């Protein structure tokens, strides 16, 4: 099966995602330049981390108008699995594929550290291999990861079980101290109504090998393979 890794000018985790998919997961991966108008028959789309278009205006605000985003919108509309990591999550928010927006971190600092997140939903293409409530230790690296949405939107996300990842302590407690950026309700990642589009600020692709300090992120990519193999995403092709 094939992963498409979208490359915007300023993406800098595109090679991390490619490496994790190709060399750790052992699946096919291809870079897709943002000016392209085809996803090349990919089964899974990854919007990688970085600073697309220099984060000018707002993070993801320019990238959402790249030609390839029309294809990503259609792919997502057909139920195809789309994963937005960090800047990729910000692009999905700006594109309206996921609800909400990102604010500057409450600390006003670029937070670069390992954090703990709890997997709250396992019925998405990127968490089906997780145990419910599994705690993952993943790296974050962002200045604008302070997730915001109106209270009624947060309520809806909770009610529809769209909060997929939440910042917690190592033991799984949802506390202010475990929240690295001030995100509403400690939200680290969410999914769409259809559950096939997932965005998160932490970097699972940078936590797939022991040499990188954690292998906890592997299960996220492994889930995508499960989803496609077992037909969860067949409708998208």
């Amino acid at each position, binding site marked *: 099966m094939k992963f498409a890794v979208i490359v915007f000018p300023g993406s800098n985790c595109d090679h991390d995602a490619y490496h994790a998919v190709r060399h750790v997961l052992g699946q096919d991966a291809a870079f897709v330049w943002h000016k392209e108008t085809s996803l090349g028959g990919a089964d899974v789309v990854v919007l990688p981390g970085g600073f697309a278009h220099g984060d000018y205006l707002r993070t993801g605000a320019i990238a959402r108008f790249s030609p390839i985003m029309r294809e990503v919108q259609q792919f997502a509309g057909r139920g195809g699995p789309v994963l937005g990591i960090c800047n990729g999550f910000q692009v999905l928010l700006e594109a309206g594929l996921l609800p909400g*927006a990102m*604010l500057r971190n*409450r600390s*006003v600092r670029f937070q670069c550290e390992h954090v703990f997140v709890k997997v709250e939903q396992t019925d998405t293409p990127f968490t089906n291999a997780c145990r419910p409530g599994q705690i993952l230790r993943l790296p974050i690296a962002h200045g604008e990861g302070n997730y915001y*949405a109106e209270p009624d939107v947060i309520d809806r996300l909770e009610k529809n079980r769209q909060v997929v990842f939440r910042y917690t302590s190592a033991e799984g407690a949802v506390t202010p101290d475990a929240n690295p950026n001030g995100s509403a309700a400690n939200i680290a990642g969410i999914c769409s109504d259809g559950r096939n589009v997932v965005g998160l600020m932490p970097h699972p692709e940078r936590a797939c090998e022991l040499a990188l300090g954690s292998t906890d992120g592997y299960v996220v990519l492994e889930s995508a393979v499960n989803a496609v193999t077992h037909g969860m995403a067949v409708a998208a092709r």
Partner: protein
Amino acid sequence: MRARVFVMLKPSVFDPQGTTVADALHTLGYASVTGVRQGKYFELDIDADTADDARRIASEAADKLLANPVIESYRIDIETTAAAKR
């Protein structure tokens, strides 16, 4: 014609940058500054016949790109003086 577009975080949205700037001003001794909100300012030079046309175009631009309606609101001033037409 020139449109001046002011984009601000909505009042309900916490502004970490503005708060940090306010803290710095307090450190400088400006105890009378009780609040700071930081926003963005754009000048759009627009080839339009009337102020209404210019406002409509600037408003569309703000809706589509300059502001994110989830967290921001905007205000537009249209300048029709000779200086703005240069």
